[in-house]
């Protein structure tokens, strides 16, 4: 009856998650759980999933219960391999294509006009994995007692902070919790959908309180018994944190994940075993409780090569971490039939594989004039034979591209993405002639007749493919008389040169393909370490005009547009502002790119179903988590 009452309370709220009929039947839950229910050792399904579980639409079709999913981990610092698979249960989540935020733990929410107040409605009757109710108290405990406790977190985790002030979480009633910020924080929902935004749902109050001095004045005894330095260390060892190995080290800890730890991830472990959470709060379209798969088995390999061997001999069901280099792809394709797996495409969340940032604010006036000349940049872009680079360096796995949201993204901008990618060295040469950079003995010279030469900074240890690409670019440019040098340098020197504005040109993978709001460095001078075509303009932007150099009108317009887009949670308004911004970026043509950021890939066993054929690959969209592994099944 209480369930009915609660259901009435949230009537209308459950658009995404209309409570399905909870008919009693073996097929609605895993056979193992049904047996426990029959024995009276476990609560009935309807009581376990609550009145308003999240309804998940399976990728292909509803699956069968059972089986064990095998995945590999590396021996050290690979806890995020587990997080990506099971542990991204925040208040909200990303949709399958990384374009929209959907309800998750919260079944709906409201945002005020100023984007300073976010009210989340939780799911009535939802339970932790130990059967204890999950309520607004847990969220308030996690934020107010844990994240904002200076003995536990010396500074509040940055996703909860805007304008240097942490937000306040307050309980409205059992299933409603409100976050209040002192400044507009329109991206709060997007950030809460990323792994680093999981704090609100991380700590169970009924379990965590015993390790917290505010609720247990005998914590000191526990600290002494556990032989640790302070209560913070004890708390962490029991409840973990978002991305530390300890998160997967305590089988007793209540969680909201589809699977719970059975054999923990510890220093001596050779595998991690997880079994289904009987109280998991998600169901499929037929009202059957998820996950379909009984258990996860993460085997731990010390060596990446032996992980490859496990993949090609068919001993893993789903894997992408550590094996997704381009060099591995032929081996993996070759052995697909033998190992009984297929390749899954992982869409790179970046836009550009090799973004070239010509220093338009160069300290040398002659170079500043050269790089600052738009038709010079256009000529340089047109003189690159992109198809040759794609064929030789990227094995044909890409297409000519400049920058901007990737094809398929709702904000994809054709001009921004494709302009000046057509190979035409004759036209390019003519444009340089017209711009006043004639050839002398075959080499281009400055208008005053002095030698024209520049260096392109690249970090070989970080991006070996970019070095190969640049060697080809150098050859292409030599044909139109441009002389340059591929300057392979170490990471810290690369940054120092950039920070001091001492570089001629630098390359870096261009972000913003799927997450244009989270990293717009190539669309305007926004990032003091990233927008390397005009570092002084970024300083002007970041310091509100106090430092750096004043940018041109085109940049100022874009800075205003971006601030407008960032200040509103209204997606239509945001899209319009960004469209206008992209128009101006395309017109200004500041960066030159080679090809669309190359996709990675993973493998999935042929037995494993409901895995999307392609999914984003990103840390903000921690693949494969947002493709919902709880609805994968073994056919």
């Amino acid at each position, binding site marked *: 009856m209480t369930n009915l009452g609660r259901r009435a309370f949230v009537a209308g709220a459950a658009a995404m998650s209309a409570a399905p009929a909870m008919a009693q039947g073996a097929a609605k839950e895993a056979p193992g759980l049904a047996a426990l229910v029959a024995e009276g050792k476990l609560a009935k399904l309807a009581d376990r999933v609550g009145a308003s579980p999240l309804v998940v639409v399976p990728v292909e079709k509803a699956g069968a219960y059972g089986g064990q999913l095998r995945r590999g981990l590396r*021996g*050290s*610092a690979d806890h*995020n391999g587990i997080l990506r698979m099971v542990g991204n249960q925040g208040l909200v989540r990303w949709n399958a294509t990384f374009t929209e935020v959907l309800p998750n733990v919260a079944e709906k929410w409201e945002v005020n006009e100023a984007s300073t107040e976010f009210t989340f409605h939780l799911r009535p009757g939802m339970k932790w994995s130990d059967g204890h109710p999950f309520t607004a108290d847990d969220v308030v405990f996690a934020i107010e007692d844990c994240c904002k406790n200076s003995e536990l*977190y*010396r*500074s*509040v*985790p*940055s*996703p909860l902070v805007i304008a240097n002030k942490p937000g306040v979480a307050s309980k409205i009633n059992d299933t409603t919790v409100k976050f209040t910020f002192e400044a507009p924080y329109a991206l709060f929902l997007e950030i809460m959908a990323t*792994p*680093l935004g999981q704090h609100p749902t991380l700590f169970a109050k009924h379990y965590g309180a015993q390790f917290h001095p505010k609720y247990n004045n005998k914590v000191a005894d526990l600290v002494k018994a556990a*032989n*640790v330095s302070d209560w*913070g*260390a004890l708390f*962490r*060892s029991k409840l973990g*944190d978002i*991305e*530390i*190995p*300890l998160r997967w*080290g305590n089988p007793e800890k209540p969680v909201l994940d589809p699977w719970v730890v059975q*054999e923990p991830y*510890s*220093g*001596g472990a*050779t*595998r991690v075993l997880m079994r289904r959470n009987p109280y998991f709060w998600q169901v499929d379209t037929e009202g059957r409780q998820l996950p379909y798969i009984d258990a996860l*088995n993460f085997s*731990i*390999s*010390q*060596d990446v*090569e*032996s992980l490859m*061997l*496990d993949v*090609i*001999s068919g*001993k893993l069901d789903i894997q992408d*971490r*550590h094996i997704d280099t381009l060099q591995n792809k032929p081996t993996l394709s070759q052995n697909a039939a033998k190992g009984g797996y297929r390749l899954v495409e992982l869409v790179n969340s970046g836009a550009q594989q090799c973004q070239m940032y010509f220093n338009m604010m160069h300290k040398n006036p002659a170079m500043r004039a050269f790089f600052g000349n738009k038709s010079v940049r256009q000529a340089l872009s047109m003189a690159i034979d992109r198809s040759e680079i794609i064929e030789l360096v990227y094995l044909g796995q890409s297409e000519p591209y400049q920058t901007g949201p990737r094809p398929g993204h709702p904000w994809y901008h054709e001009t921004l993405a494709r302009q000046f990618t057509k190979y035409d060295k004759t036209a390019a040469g003519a444009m340089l002639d017209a711009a006043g950079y004639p050839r002398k003995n075959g080499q281009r010279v400055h208008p005053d007749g002095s030698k024209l030469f520049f260096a392109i900074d690249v970090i070989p240890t970080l991006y070996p493919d970019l070095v190969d690409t640049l060697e080809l670019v150098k050859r292409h440019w030599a044909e139109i008389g441009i002389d340059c040098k591929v300057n392979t340098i170490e990471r810290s020197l690369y940054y120092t040169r950039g920070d001091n504005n001492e570089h001629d040109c630098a390359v870096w993978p261009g972000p913003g393909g799927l997450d244009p709001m989270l990293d717009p460095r190539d669309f305007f001078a926004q990032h003091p370490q990233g927008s390397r075509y005009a570092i002084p303009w970024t300083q002007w932007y970041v310091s509100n005009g106090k430092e750096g150099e004043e940018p041109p009108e085109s940049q100022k317009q874009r800075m205003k547009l971006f601030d407008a887009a960032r200040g509103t949670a209204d997606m239509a308004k945001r899209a319009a502002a960004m469209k206008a911004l992209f128009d101006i970026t395309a017109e200004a043509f500041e960066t030159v790119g080679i090809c669309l950021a190359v996709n990675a890939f993973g493998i999935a066993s042929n037995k494993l179903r409901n895995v999307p054929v392609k999914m984003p*690959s*990103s*840390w903000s969209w921690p693949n494969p988590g947002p493709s919902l592994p709880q609805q994968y099944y073994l056919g």
Partner: protein
Amino acid sequence: MIPSLGVISILAFILIRLPPGDFVTNYIATLAASNEIVDQNTAAELRARFGLDQPMIVQYWRWISGIVLRGDFGFSFEWQQPVGDLIWERMGLTLVLTFTTLLMTWAIALPVGVYSAVKKYSLGDYVATFFSFLGLAVPSFLLALVLMYVAAMYFSQDVGGLFSQEYLTAPWSFWKFVDLMSHIWIAVIILAVSGTASLIRIMRANMLDELSKPYVTTARAKGLSEMTLLFRYPVRLALNPFISTIAWLLPNLVSGSVIVAIVLNLPTAGPLLLQSLMSQDMYLAGAFVLLICALTLVGTLISDVLLALVDPRIRLE
């Protein structure tokens, strides 16, 4: 011994701290390789919690005082588990593996070495020599990789690790032992190959030195049978160098065969040691280095004592 251990502990600490960065920068870089980001506030928090923001001397004092005063080796940064537990957890299997390998090496190398010395320049000698040079020349990790590939691709055999899935966490039983034996042989062979090869060469050379000495002729003239003669005199003398290598044997228990263990995915101490060094997990790595050094010192002591026992000449001096 105690003062040298003290000096070693300081050196070890400095050496582990020597590469640029610290545990936290390493941790961030490792995650960045998978495109993962650590919150800046969290990173600062970690650094403060591990005391990495303190001067080195303070860090050293925190570490060494725990060991000396309380026998507490501290917590591993990465795993937040007591260092002692982590190391001991791995020691059992490490000992089994090392001793099996050692026995196998000696069981093959000693007889073959003696044989190829006695039957110098015979067909058997050439065969033994050929294989021992081959064994010396092939890096053992490469051998491991090739064997694993062949086993996986052509025999669908699982060669990594020491146990099958079903016995991984099972309590010890007869069948678990059988399972261990069915996995351990490949590791033992790979590890034994290079050791055996060099031992054969050493044994052969030692024996050749001894065989031509006058006491052998004397013994033969006294009418001793060839076998008795061989084992009573020259072999005993030729064994001396082996005994002095026991000093290196003990530290090898911990740090030997690291690369092979990593390739074969063996749950032994080696991979843990390498991992802790690479991630600059100070307390874990420090405890390992200290342990290895202590074992070297103890090993030297043992081999000195043994040598004196075996060889009367040394006692006389």
